[in-house]
């Protein structure tokens, strides 16, 4: 047991103005003998600290700051050098991305309090919490949201699942095969989608968005903006007569713009709900008051052209946020020529092109133009013979996004394999920096692809240019110690993942925080990856940070576990931002007295 009045607090740096008094705050504890700053010592000389430890009879050190871990080994070496127990050391970290400035001070103080009193902060901040409304809201119906909804609904809890687009399924529905097992995304996803559509505990609100969230953990009131579909879900039979007659053509979102859709459309054949949507922004009737042919041909008269959007309010106890991502805009990297050269594609476009249910039925072809000059893909066009895939487009790059998007290496390998499968004589090459095939079965997949006659080259492609009608890419082959100037027919840019467009807005209305990049911030990156600073609000899937399908599914389930647990207990734990310093102080005293 560490003696009373033998603790020292070392602040990593002199904190900014709002935190000035911390030095005084820490010094006032009877347990604390010394308050030091890291700048007082020479980090190159552990004697500079160990002599002070010895001189002052310090037995335990608390290191506090933005990243105290950086000092940890220096301090424990100094403790050992001074003949003290090197493990009598507590790190108190505050991270600006976890807390907004207002809450930062009280949480920092509470953490110092816990460290001084030898109580784990996690135990002290574990509050009993509020009564919970059993109904749960899941925002976003990609694979993570679907998984969380099903998991919760299967426990007999009512779920409202909100999806921005007209169908559930998210990005996964757009994919062809999934790595590393190469089973088709639709085969494993659509049964889940149907299950969601038919589940008696799930209320599905597609074409809807969250506007505002108020209330507290266990009792949230959510304002939902329901865009009108202008098609009655109950009566539409999905016959498609309306689409056939609709005169408007716009790029299909589901096909990543590789083909055109009508203004009244169904996103894809297996959409859930499998009913049509009238896209008001592109409909001639809605915009100009003319046309309306769809309503005329509808055999069951389920199209209401003059329907208006509405805003509804729902009350829920828990919220799971699973809003996913958007892909990096490849046009930002001018030197790859996306948007300039028609046969430079993003990986999402290529994914649709490869898809057996995609615009070309799975054949890889050159981009052609429709009557109005839109770049589309048609099944009977010529196939490219030389295809290059470029990794890390917009990822791991200080000029765009610093983070690694985690999935691009694997999906690029998968695409290379699919190209070889469809065009066995094609010359396929891949350009990467580090091959990140880390998951179960991934490395084995990489080894398998290497044997399929695909050139996998270490070296980031620097530029793609058009010369004599061919695309020429320039890259260094690092392992081969040579430069590569290669003519190809098609270039696929493996674009990274970015936070969704509305994620900042949503974070604001939920009052949760985001990190520097814009991903939703988890409470603790080690073991609280689905919790947020607010009680009853959980995050799952890519909106928390890039992830592949199994990891998103696991996180969706993990978030569901939290919801189910709170419903079973009828109580939802308070979040960090709902707790005051005094709450924690009371709990600390409680814990100390039970210990004794």
């Amino acid at each position, binding site marked *: 047991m560490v003696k009373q009045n033998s603790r020292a607090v070392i602040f990593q740096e002199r904190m900014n103005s709002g935190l000035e008094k911390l030095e005084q705050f820490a010094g006032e504890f009877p347990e604390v003998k010394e308050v030091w700053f890291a700048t007082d010592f020479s980090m190159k000389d552990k004697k500079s600290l160990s002599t002070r430890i010895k001189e002052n009879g310090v037995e335990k050190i608390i290191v506090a700051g933005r990243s105290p871990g950086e000092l940890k080994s220096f301090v424990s070496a100094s403790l050992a050098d001074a003949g003290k127990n090197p493990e009598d050391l507590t790190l108190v970290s505050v991270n600006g991305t976890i807390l907004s400035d207002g809450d930062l001070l009280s949480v920092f103080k509470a953490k110092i309090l816990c460290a001084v009193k030898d109580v784990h902060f996690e135990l002290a901040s574990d509050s009993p919490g509020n009564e919970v409304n059993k109904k749960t809201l899941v925002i976003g119906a990609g694979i993570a949201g679907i998984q969380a909804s099903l998991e919760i609904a299967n426990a007999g809890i009512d779920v409202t699942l909100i999806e921005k687009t007209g169908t559930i399924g998210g990005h996964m529905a757009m994919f062809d095969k999934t790595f590393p097992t190469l089973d088709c995304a639709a085969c494993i996803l659509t049964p889940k989608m149907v299950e969601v559509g038919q589940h008696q505990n799930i209320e599905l609100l597609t074409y809807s968005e969250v506007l505002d969230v108020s209330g507290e953990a266990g009792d949230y009131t959510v304002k939902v903006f329901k865009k009108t579909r202008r098609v009655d879900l109950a009566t539409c039979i999905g016959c498609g007569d309306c689409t056939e007659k609709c005169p408007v053509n716009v790029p299909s979102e589901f096909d990543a713009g590789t083909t055109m859709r009508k203004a009244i459309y169904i996103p894809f054949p297996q959409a859930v709900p499998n009913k049509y949507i009238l896209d008001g922004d592109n409909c001639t009737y809605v915009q100009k008051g003319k046309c309306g042919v769809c309503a005329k041909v509808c055999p069951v008269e389920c199209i209401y052209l003059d329907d208006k959007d509405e805003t509804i309010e729902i009350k829920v106890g828990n919220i799971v946020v699973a809003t996913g991502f958007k892909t990096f805009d490849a046009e930002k990297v001018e030197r790859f020529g996306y948007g300039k050269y028609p046969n430079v594609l993003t990986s999402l476009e290529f994914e649709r092109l490869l898809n057996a249910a995609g615009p070309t039925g799975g054949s890889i072809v050159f981009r052609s133009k429709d009557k109005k000059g839109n770049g589309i893909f048609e099944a009977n066009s010529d196939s490219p013979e030389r295809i290059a895939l470029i990794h*890390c487009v917009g990822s791991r790059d200080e000029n765009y996004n610093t983070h690694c998007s985690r999935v691009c290496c694997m999906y690029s390998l998968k695409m290379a394999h699919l190209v070889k499968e469809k065009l066995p004589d094609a010359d396929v090459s891949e350009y990467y*920096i580090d091959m990140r095939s880390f998951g179960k079965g991934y490395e084995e997949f990489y080894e398998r692809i290497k044997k399929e006659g695909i050139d996998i080259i270490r070296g*980031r492609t620097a530029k793609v240019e058009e010369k004599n009608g061919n695309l020429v890419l320039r890259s*260094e082959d*690092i392992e081969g110690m040579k*430069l590569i100037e290669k003519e190809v027919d098609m270039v696929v840019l493996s674009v990274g993942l970015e936070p969704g467009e509305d994620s900042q807005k949503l974070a604001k209305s939920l009052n949760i925080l985001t990190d520097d990049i814009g991903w939703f911030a988890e409470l603790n990156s080690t073991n609280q990856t689905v919790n947020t600073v607010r009680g009853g609000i959980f995050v799952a899937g890519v909106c928390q940070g890039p992830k592949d399908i199994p990891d998103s599914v696991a996180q969706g389930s993990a978030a569901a576990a939290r919801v189910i647990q709170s419903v079973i207990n009828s109580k939802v734990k308070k979040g960090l931002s709902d707790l005051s310093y005094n709450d924690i102080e009371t709990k600390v005293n409680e814990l100390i007295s039970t210990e004794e």
Partner: protein
Amino acid sequence: MSTVVNPDLNAKLVKFGNKSEWNECYHCGNCTAVCSLTENENLFPRKVIRQLQMGLKDKFNSNIDPWLCYYCGDCSETCPRDANPGEMMMSARRYLTSVYDWTGLSGLFFKSVPALIIAFVLVAVSIIGVGYAKQFNLESIMEFGHVFEKMLIFSVVVLILIPNIFHMFWLTIIKEKIKAPFLLYVKGIWDLFLHMFTQKKSLKCEKNTFRWFEHLLVVFGYILLLITTVFLNWFSTENTYIIWFGYIVGGLVFIITFDFILERVKKKKELSKFSHPSDWLFVIWLFLMGFTAFIVRILIDTDLISNNLWLYIVHLIVIAQWGILIVPFGKWTHFLYRSFAVYFANIKSAELNS
């Protein structure tokens, strides 16, 4: 035979450049691929960075590649890790300059600003001392100046530049065991001079055209100014053509160098974002040379020179500092090494390809 890696070279190089940013490099190969000048035999900047990081000192000392870079800044602009390969190449050139220089002064001046200041002050004091010895008589000082310039050129070339070029030759060709037939050397001479005066290769970096033109003008302006002042005796001549010619070249030098200085102050372009003391010295002294020569001749033409003797002494100090310090040990040598590097590189690749 395996080489032992050495983490200390890295730290040594830091003294010749801005920071050790190139440690951030994760070897994606972007810089090498984006560069318009790289070829299979010359994979820079990445391979140069690698040699530095790993402390492969011998390999690095024999590497010509740093001289083949004309610093367009593409690599630094597109570097995904902010490792700034362009500036690293610049530092590598400074370091190599110190390697080639047998006197060791070059390295001292690059690394230590105080040493540089002391040297500059010493030179200035010596010139003033000469003036004192000549009792501040304008004519005898100008006469001395004229002889001094010729002597200076001769001794710098013979004592410093030629030995250093041989040192470079020894490191990059002999030590690398390149045995090229003599004929190759002869054939390459035309290219050597062409590159020396035109830096033709830098035109391959597309956005360099204007800068290349400016450079070309400065090089020619500088050489012509040298010829007019030293060999055509600009300050003493009565020949109107020569006088006017001197004005033009002198003006050319200081106007363009003024633009260079402005760019470095504005730091807009990638290549002018960071300036080492040696860069400042080079452009400022070039400017001062042109400018003071211009002013001196104006004073001569307006017969005001006798009242402004000190101005001539200042000009002479600038020339002396330039000739004694900057030309043999400073950035001026890049002009020479770069041209010889192209020459050696051509011989090397011709030999390797044959």
